[in-house]
Structures are given as C-alpha cells and as structure tokens.
C-alpha cells in the first residue's frame, strides 16, 4: 500500500497559481487606458465574433485575458448580476465596485477550493464616470485579489512589461487617438524587446465614452473609424471620433 503524498498548503497554492498564470500567458495581453472622454480597451484579437471586451451595464465594461470559455462564463454571470440588480433596485445601483467584488469572491472561491481547477483568467472591470475623476478601473487576477488601478492597466501573460511601458508614457487627459496609439505601441512590443506590427484588422477596440448621449456608454470602434483614429496624428483625429458612433 502506498502512502499518500503530503503537499504543504503553500506548495499547493503556489502550484495552482502557476497553473493559472501559465494558462493566462498563452493568450495575448490587452490594455485598458483612461483618456479625456472615457476609457478605451485595446487588444489583439484575430476573431471578429469572439470578443475580449464587452458591455456589462450602462457605464460598465468588461475585459478579459485567458481562457475563453471561462471568462465568457464570468462575463455572462456579470451581465445577469447587473441586470438583476438594476431590475430589483435601480439602474444607478449597479456599480463597477459591486461587480468587481462579486467577481473577486467568485474567483477567490474557485481558486482556493480543492475540488475545482483554478480559472485561467485575468479580468478588468471598468466604469466611466461623469468626469475623469469618477472613472474606476479594477483589475482581477486569477486568485480573486482585486487591484484598484488608475490611468492604465495591462492584463495577460506579458502584462508586467506592458504596464511598465504604459506607466512611463500614459498621462491624464490624452485624446482617444493618442491613447489608442500608445496602447498599440505597448502591445506590439515583444517580451524580448523587439517590435512587431499589429495590423488594424487584428485589433479589437472598444470604449466607454462619457460624451455619448445614450445611457449605455459602451461602443465598439471598428472599420473606417478605427483606421482613421490610428492614422490621425494626435488631437486632430478627435473631431471625427465621437460623431459617427454607431457603426457596429
């Protein structure tokens, strides 16, 4: 008869964390930045249909890196949570903070329960405020911790390097075109330092735009509008940016 192995709790948790981190690192990283009129989500995603970014509620957006089926599951759970809460109370009672807490609890429970395999995902929950001061960005790593971020945040395998790059260059009050370009520059740097080109067709871009007249502030930026923003130099691009919003 064989004796069961003893694995120390520290070792077990470290193994689970490594397992999750490796899973997350297989996918591409993505970034979320504040700009003057809102929050922009940028990532490399060859798929047109399987999104990394999506709308959760009026002012709340969601971004995820890692395993698709797992973050999709969490995304739908979040939409259900937000819609149910808004239906029971009021639309204003749905907040990014509340949602981030629920996600943190969910990820944390899954991570530390021995019966389940840890989720290989890293999430960002962002809410756009009336003014830049009201913007909220929360990063949720696989283990259920929660980090309140300001300015810019990167998640995914290569996140540390990218966020280092962003921290040096991001400043408050950037225009959408400036923020978008900075995000693309940050994403196109490889871990070994070399740069590669990410064509516009492989980019997924979405914004939470506080200037949008509708209650729902989330919109995707695609096609012509995206290439125009990428080509434009700095502030000149902005004029066209928020006008033709609904070309989804």
């Amino acid at each position, binding site marked *: 008869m064989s004796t069961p192995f003893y694995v120390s709790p520290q070792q077990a948790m470290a193994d689970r964390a490594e397992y999750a981190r490796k899973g997350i690192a297989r996918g591409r990283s993505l970034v979320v930045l504040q700009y003057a009129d809102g929050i922009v989500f940028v990532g490399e995603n060859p798929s047109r249909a399987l999104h990394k970014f*999506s709308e959760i509620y009026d002012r709340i957006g969601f971004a995820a890196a890692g395993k698709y089926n797992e973050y999709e599951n969490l995304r739908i*759970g979040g939409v259900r*949570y937000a*819609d*149910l809460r808004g*239906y029971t109370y009021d639309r204003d009672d749905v907040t990014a903070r509340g949602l981030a807490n629920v*996600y943190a609890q969910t990820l944390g429970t899954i991570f530390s329960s021995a019966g389940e395999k840890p989720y290989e995902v890293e999430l960002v929950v962002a809410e756009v405020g009336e003014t830049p001061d009201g913007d909220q960005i929360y990063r949720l790593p696989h283990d259920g911790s929660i980090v309140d971020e300001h300015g810019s945040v990167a998640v995914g395998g290569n996140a540390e390097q990218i966020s280092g790059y962003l921290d040096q260059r991001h400043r408050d009050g950037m225009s959408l075109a400036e923020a978008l370009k900075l995000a693309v520059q940050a994403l196109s740097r490889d871990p070994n330092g070399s740069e590669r080109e990410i064509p516009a067709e492989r980019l997924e871009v979405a914004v939470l735009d506080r200037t949008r007249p509708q209650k729902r502030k989330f919109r995707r930026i695609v096609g012509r509008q995206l290439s125009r923003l990428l080509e434009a130099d700095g502030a000149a691009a902005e004029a066209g940016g928020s006008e033709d919003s609904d070309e989804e």
Partner: protein
Amino acid sequence: MEANTRSTGRLPAAFLTPGSSSFMDFLSEHQPELLPGNRQLPPTQGVIEAPHGTTIVSVTFPGGVVLAGDRRATMGNVIAQRDIEKVFPADEYSAVGIAGTAGLAVEMVKLFQLELEHFEKVEGAQLSLEGKANRLSTMIRSNLGMAMQGLAVVPLFAGYDVDRDKGRIFSYDVTGGRSEEHGYAATGSGSIFARGAMKKLFREDLSEAEATTLVVQALYDAADDDSATGGPDVARRIYPIVTVITEDGFRRLTDDESSAIARSVLERRLEQPDGPRAALL
C-alpha cells in the same frame, strides 16, 4: 444585495450556468417571484380600480414608423394623471406604446427593455424585429391571469426592421395574440376613432413630417369622441408624445417639435372642427 443573498458573495451557480440568453428565463429559474406574471392576486370582488392609459397610434411611412400616445390616465370617470407617458423606447430600433393598466404596463415595459438589452449583451447581436415582437407576446400572455381580473395591458409595438429596411407595426390582444398591421394601427379606448381618422388620412407615400402630423390628428379625433383620451393641453403645455423610428434609430420629438405640430393641428381645427376631409371620389 439581492444577487448575493444565496451565497457567500460568490456568484450563485445559476449565474454561471450556461443557458438561455433571455433575462426572463433566467429570472424564472432563479427568482421566479420577481416576474410580474407570477404574482398571486387575492380574490377580489368586481374590477380593481387602477389608472388606465388610453390611446396609442402608429403609422408607417417609407423609411420608418411613427408611434404616438396621448397623455391622459383615467380611473373610472376621474382623470388620474394628465401627463402620463405611455410610449417608450424598447431599444435602439423599436418602441412600445401601452394602453391598459398603467402600473402594470410600465413594469412590463421595463422588463421588456431589459429583456432586449440582456439578449443583446449576452449574444453580442440584436434580436430580429420579429423576435422582439414575439417576446412581447409571451409577456402579455403571462399577464393573462391579471387581465381576467380587469388588469389588462394591450401594447402596440413598432420598429424599424433593419433586415427589410422598413418600419413595421405589431398589435396585440390581451391573450398575447399578435398580428402585424399594415400602414397604421391603434389601440386603447379611443382607438376606434383614431383608426377612422387614420384610415381617411393615410397614404403609402407620407413623409416623416406628414406622418407625425397624421398621428396627432388621429389622437385629436380620439380625444374628441372618447372621454378617456386627452387632447393637447395648451394651458398646461402638455402635448402628445410622438416618437419616430428610422434607419438612424429611435427618436422622441422634443416638446417644442410636438407642441408645434399640436398647435398647427389645433389652429386648423378652430376653422374646421372635424378635421381634414378625404375626397369623396
């Protein structure tokens, strides 16, 4: 926190179970007591008195559809409210106007809006106009129990069909029976009179401006002959709610725009109280 009462802050299993994209289906699995149709009514004697909304009219024109409603809510012979709103956007490309028990109607619209929005967020695509009309049908059917006690809700649903590039109107009965209307439609107690007016004034080639004027004329005629329908209230500056849905989406006319239309209709009626006439032959 409602969503969390059943666990330790973690999303309950129902939230993470793959399944339907319908918010109503989710509610009926997770918290069925929150669905309006599942409410148990105590046995009552006679009909329950609650404010009722009255006339809703809708007209299509090339490129879109107009949906409008008067502003009166009545409770028996009392005017319960003079500035009630009975026409609401359902989503970007559709709107719903409701006659019947006001309280239930507003609740039904709220759930309907959420149903469409929920589907859109989960699926990443909008429902077809037909699909939206069918969802509304289901909701009315679930209200049948209350309708039998006098708390009926009878909506008119209008939208721009992006796939067919045209405006379409759907009308309903209390059992959820749905039928597509061609050209124009009306619901509520003043609808017979409104429909008569629209029948005479409607043409296939109306412009948007003509269509919005037409619905105001029809509402005037409804108010003229039905005591439960309110006409334009010039003294209090309360005018009908007129909404237009086109390729560009839903738009509600501003107070200035709808008052301008209502005033021009009123002016003409001062000279000709029965309104514009159709040619005899």
